[in-house]
C-alpha cells in the first residue's frame, strides 16, 4: 500500500504543476483538464520517439505492450514496465502506467534485463604520462632510466590494494559502445600487474563515477603475467610468477599473525609496520573477497585452483577458453567461471595459402563449444567479451549458441548468473520490481542475427544508442577501396601504465610486398607479415626479452601522416599508441 500511496502523491504533484496550479479536486472534476493531461502525455511520448540525446534527469518511464523476458525462460508476452528513480517500480501484464510517465511503445519489441560483461577494463583511467623517464634521443634505441625501470618492475608486480572504484573515469567511447551493444553493467579490473587490484561492478551510466559503482570490491584480481620485455625483474618466468603469488600470500599470513598478536597484547610487543599491499590480501585469505584469476589454458586454471587450495581462497576463473577441459574439476570445486567469448580466429592478415597447424585449427573449432560443455557439466558461468569489440560480444555468444549452448543458458550467463557470481543478484539480473532499472529493448530475439538494440536504460535513465560508423568487418561490409601507402618512418608513442615508450616503425615497399623494422628500447627487430588493408596496417614482431621472445602484433589505422592503434604483446597486455610520419 505504501508504494501506491507514494505513487499517487507523485502523480498528483506532477499533475498539479502541469495543470497550471490547479487544485487536485478541481483536476478530478474537470473533464477538460483531464483531456489536457492526456494531450500532454501524448506530446511527451512523441517527444520520446523523436531523436534524443541522453536524458538529464532521472525520469519516470513506462514501457508498454512489450514482450518482457523477466528472466531466462520466463516471459510476459505483452506487459508493461514502470521505471522510477532508477528502479523498476512495477512490471506485469496489468502494471498501471503512472500519469507522469514518459511512455515508450514497446509493441514488437522485446525487453531483456540489461546485459552484464563480467570482465572488462571499462572506465579505467588512461595511464599517467611520465615524461623525463627516458634518456636517449629520438630515433635511436632509448635507454630506460633506473627510476623508470623500477617503476616498470613495480607495475609488473601490481598492487593488490589498488581499487578500480577509486579511480573510475566515466564517459568515453568504450563505455558508449558497450552500452549501445546492450551491456548495461560490467565488472571492471585494472590491466597491469600480477596482482591487478580490486575490481568493481559498475553500471555503464552517466558522468558521475561515484554513481556508477554498484558494488566494490567484488574480487581481488590476479593474473599469471611475467615481467619480461620492458621491465625484466623477478619474476620473468611463469614458475617465478607462481612463486611470487605464493610468497605474497605467505607474507600476508605473517602480517596477519603479527597484527593479531598486536591487537591482543599491545604491551611488550613490537608494533608491526602498516603494509597496505599485504593488508589488501587479508580479505581474500579470510575467504571474504573472491580471488579472480585470469586463466585461459587448462594449465593456468589448474595453477589457479592449486593456489586457491593452498591458501583456502575463494577462486573465480576469467578467460577459461579451455575451461571445458577441466569442467568436472570446476564443478566439483564449485568454481564460477567468467568465460571469454573472444574466440580465436584466423588472423586477418594471413593469406589464403598460409597453412596453420592442426592444433591451432582444432583449438579454433573447439573453443566456441566450451560454453555448451560448461553448461552441460553444471559449471556456473557468466560471459566476458574478452577484449573483443562490444559489437562482437553478442555475435560471439551467438556462435556459442550455434555450437550447442541453449539460448536460455546464454541469457542466464549474461544476466542472472553474472549477477550471482558478482554478488549483485538482489539488484540486477532479472526484470523484477525493486531491482535496478537496467533494461534493453531489442527488435526481437536477442540472439537472432538481424536483431538490433532499440533502447537502453541504465539506472533508469535512457541512453542514446550510438551506431557503429563502419560496417562490421567480415560480415559483408564493403572493404575500403584503395589502400593507403604506409611506407615511411613512423614515430610512435606507446602508452604503458608507466609512461610513454617511443618506438620507430620503418615501413618500406619491397616489390609488391611490405617490410620494415621496429626500433624500441629493446633494440631493432624486423617486422614480419606487414600488410595494409584499406588504411589499416598490420605487422607482427618478435622482440627478444629475457630468454623468450615476446610476440607482438601491431595494428594501426593511418590517416594522412598520423597513425593510431594498438600494440599487443601477448600476456603483457595491449597498449595503445599514437604517432606520426614526419615528412
Amino acid at each position, binding site marked *: 500500500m505504501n508504494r501506491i500511496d507514494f505513487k499517487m502523491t507523485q502523480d498528483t504533484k506532477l499533475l498539479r504543476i502541469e495543470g497550471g496550479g490547479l487544485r487536485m479536486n478541481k483536476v478530478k472534476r474537470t473533464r477538460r483538464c483531464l483531456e489536457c493531461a492526456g494531450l500532454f502525455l501524448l506530446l511527451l511520448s512523441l517527444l520520446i520517439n523523436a531523436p534524443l540525446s541522453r536524458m538529464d534527469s532521472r525520469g519516470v518511464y513506462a514501457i508498454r505492450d512489450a514482450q518482457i523476458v523477466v528472466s531466462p525462460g520466463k516471459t510476459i508476452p505483452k506487459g508493461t514496465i514502470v521505471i522510477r528513480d532508477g528502479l523498476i517500480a512495477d512490471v506485469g501484464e496489468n502494471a498501471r502506467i503512472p500519469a507522469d510517465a514518459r511512455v515508450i511503445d514497446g509493441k514488437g519489441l522485446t525487453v531483456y534485463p540489461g546485459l552484464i560483461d563480467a570482465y572488462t577494463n571499462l572506465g579505467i583511467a588512461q595511464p599517467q604520462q611520465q615524461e623525463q623517464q627516458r634518456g636517449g634521443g629520438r630515433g635511436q*634505441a632509448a*635507454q*630506460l632510466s633506473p627510476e623508470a*625501470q623500477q617503476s616498470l618492475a613495480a607495475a609488473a608486480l601490481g598492487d593488490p590494494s589498488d581499487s578500480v572504484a577509486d579511480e573510475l573515469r566515466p564517459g568515453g567511447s568504450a563505455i558508449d559502445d558497450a552500452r549501445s551493444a546492450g551491456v548495461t553493467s560490467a565488472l571492471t579490473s585494472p590491466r597491469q600487474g600480477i596482482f591487478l587490484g580490486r575490481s568493481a561492478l559498475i553500471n555503464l551510466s552517466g558522468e558521475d563515477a561515484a554513481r556508477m559503482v554498484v558494488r566494490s570490491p567484488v574480487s581481488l584480481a590476479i593474473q599469471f603475467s*611475467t*615481467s619480461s620485455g620492458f621491465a*625484466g*625483474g*623477478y*619474476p*620473468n*618466468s*611463469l*614458475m*617465478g610468477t*607462481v*612463486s611470487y603469488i*605464493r*610468497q605474497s600470500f*605467505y*607474507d600476508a*599470513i*605473517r602480517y596477519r*599473525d*603479527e597484527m593479531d*598478536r598486536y591487537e591482543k*597484547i599491545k604491551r*611488550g*610487543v613490537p608494533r608491526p609496520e602498516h603494509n597496505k599491499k599485504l593488508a589488501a590480501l587479508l580479505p581474500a585469505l579470510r575467504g571474504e573477497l573472491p580471488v579472480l584469476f585470469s586463466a585461459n*589454458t*587448462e*594449465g593456468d586454471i*589448474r*595453477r589457479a585452483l*592449486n593456489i586457491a587450495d593452498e591458501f583456502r581462497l575463494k577462486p573465480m576463473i576469467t578467460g577459461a577458453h579451455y575451461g571445458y577441459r577441466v569442467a568436472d574439476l570446476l564443478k566439483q570445486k564449485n568454481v564460477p567461471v567468467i568465460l571469454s567469448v573472444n574466440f580465436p580466429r584466423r588472423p586477418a592478415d594471413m593469406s589464403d595459402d598460409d597453412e596453420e597447424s592442426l592444433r591451432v585449427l582444432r583449438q579454433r573449432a573447439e573453443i566456441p563449444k566450451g560454453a555448451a560443455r560448461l553448461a552441460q557439466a553444471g559449471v556456473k558461468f557468466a560471459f566476458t567479451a574478452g577484449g573483443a569489440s562490444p559489437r562482437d560480444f553478442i555475435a560471439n555468444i551467438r556462435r556459442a549458441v550455434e555450437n550447442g549452448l541453449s539460448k536460455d543458458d546464454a541469457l542466464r550467463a549474461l544476466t542472472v548468473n553474472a549477477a550471482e557470481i558478482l554478488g549483485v543478484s538482489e539488484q540486477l539480473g532479472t526484470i523484477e520490481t525493486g531491482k535496478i532499472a537496467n533494461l534493453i529493448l531489442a527488435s526481437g530475439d536477442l540472439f537472432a542475427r538481424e536483431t538490433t538494440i532499440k533502447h537502453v536504460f541504465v539506472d533508469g535513465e535512457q541512453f542514446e544508442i550510438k551506431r557503429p560508423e563502419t560496417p562490421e568487418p567480415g560480415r559483408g561490409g564493403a572493404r575500403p577501396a584503395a589502400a593507403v601507402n604506409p611506407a615511411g618512418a613512423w614515430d610512435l608513442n606507446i602508452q604503458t601504465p608507466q609512461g610513454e615508450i617511443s618506438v620507430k616503425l620503418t615501413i618500406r615497399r619491397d616489390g609488391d610486398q611490405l617490410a620494415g623494422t621496429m626500433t624500441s*628500447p*629493446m*633494440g631493432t627487430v624486423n617486422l614480419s607479415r606487414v600488410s595494409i588493408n584499406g588504411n589499416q596496417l598490420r605487422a607482427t614482431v618478435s622482440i*627478444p*626479452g*629475457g*630468454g*623468450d621472445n615476446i610476440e607482438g602484433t601491431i595494428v594501426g589505422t593511418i590517416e594522412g601522416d598520423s597513425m593510431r592503434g594498438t600494440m599487443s604483446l601477448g600476456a603483457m597486455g595491449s597498449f595503445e599508441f599514437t604517432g606520426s610520419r614526419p615528412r
Partner: protein
Amino acid sequence: MEDSMKKMKAIISAVVTLAMAVSALGQSGGSAQSSETLIKNATIMTASHGTIKNGSILIRNGKIAAVGADVKATDPNARIIDATGKYVTPGIIDCHSHTAATGSINEGSLSVTAMVRIQDVVEPEHPNIYRQLAGGLTTVNVLHGSANAIGGQNAVLKLKHGKPVDEWFVTDAPPGIKFALGENPKRSNFQPQPGQQRRYPATRMGVEEVIREAFVQAKEYMAEWQEYEKKKSADPKAIPPRRDLKLEALAEILQGKRLIHAHCYRSDEILMLLTLGDELGFKIKTLQHVLEGYKVAKEIAAHKAGASTFADSWSYKMEAFDAIPYNMAVMASRGVVVTINSDSDERARRLYLEAPKAMKYGGVSEEEALKMITLNAAI
C-alpha cells in the same frame, strides 16, 4: 658390438610394449578387466639381475609382481603379451630433461631462485612426450634451467601420455633442486638487454660466493625457526617466523631432504662445489653434464656424487671443449654412479643408442651400460 646394437634396437619395441601395457592397465582400472598382465617368452634384461632368456614378467596393479623363467598369471583373465623374439628392459629414465614444462625453464632474473618450482608449470601437451615414449623413455627428471647459480626445484614425472597431469608426478621421488656453475650463471654468453644492468655474478668466483651467501642466509633462517619451535609453548607472544619459500628450499638441502643436481663442465669448478659442500654441510647428489668428470672421478666418487653426462656431445662452448668419449667409462671405473641424460626432447628419444657408446668407448659391460639409462638414474 654389431650384436649389441641389434639387440638395443630390438629392445625399443619391447620397452614400448611394456609402456603401453602399463598405461593400458591404468586405463582399465576399475573396469571388469583383469588387474594382471603377463609378458611371456621375452628376453628380459633386468639391469640388476642379469638377462633372463625366454622369461616372463607378471604385472599386477601397475607393479611388477614377479620376474623369472616360470612366472605364471594367477588370474585366468589376465592380459597376455607374447614377446617372442623381443627384449624387455626397464623403462628408460632421463636424469636431465626439460620436457613438459611450459613457459621459460629459467627464472633468470635472480642468481638464486630456489623458490620456483617446475611442478607449477608441468603441462604435458607436446607430441614430444609421445615421441620420447616411443624411444622407450618412461620417466624424466625435469630440471630448472642453468641460468642461475641456484635455480629452481625439479619435478620427477612418469610420461603417462593421455592421463591427467596430476597423475604424472612421482610423489615419492626425493625433491631436488638445480644448481649451475660456469658460463651460464655468470652469463658470459649473454648480452644484457639494453638498459638492463649486468646481473651479479660475472665470474666463477662470484658464482661460488653467491652459493655461499645463500647458505649462510639459509642457516640463519633455520636458526630463527628453531628458536621459535623452542619457545612457542612457553611464550604466548610467539608467532611463527616469516615463511620464506627460497630459504625453506635451501634449508631442506642442509637437512638432507632436497637433492642437488648441479650443472657443471670444468674440473676446477667441480672441485670448488664439492669443497664448498663440505664447508657448508651439503651434499651434491648429481653433477650434470660433467664433461671433465674423468679428471676428478676419484673426488666425485669420494663425495658420493652421481654423474649425469652426455655420451658424445661437446664443444658447443668454451667450457665444453676438454671432453672425451671415455668420460662415462672412466668415471664408472672409479666408482661413480653414471647416468646418461638427454637435456633435449630430441636426444631423449634415443637414449638407448647413447648407452652403447659407453661400451664402445671404455668397454663398459652391456648390463652396466643399460644401468646408465635405467637403474643408476633411479639411485
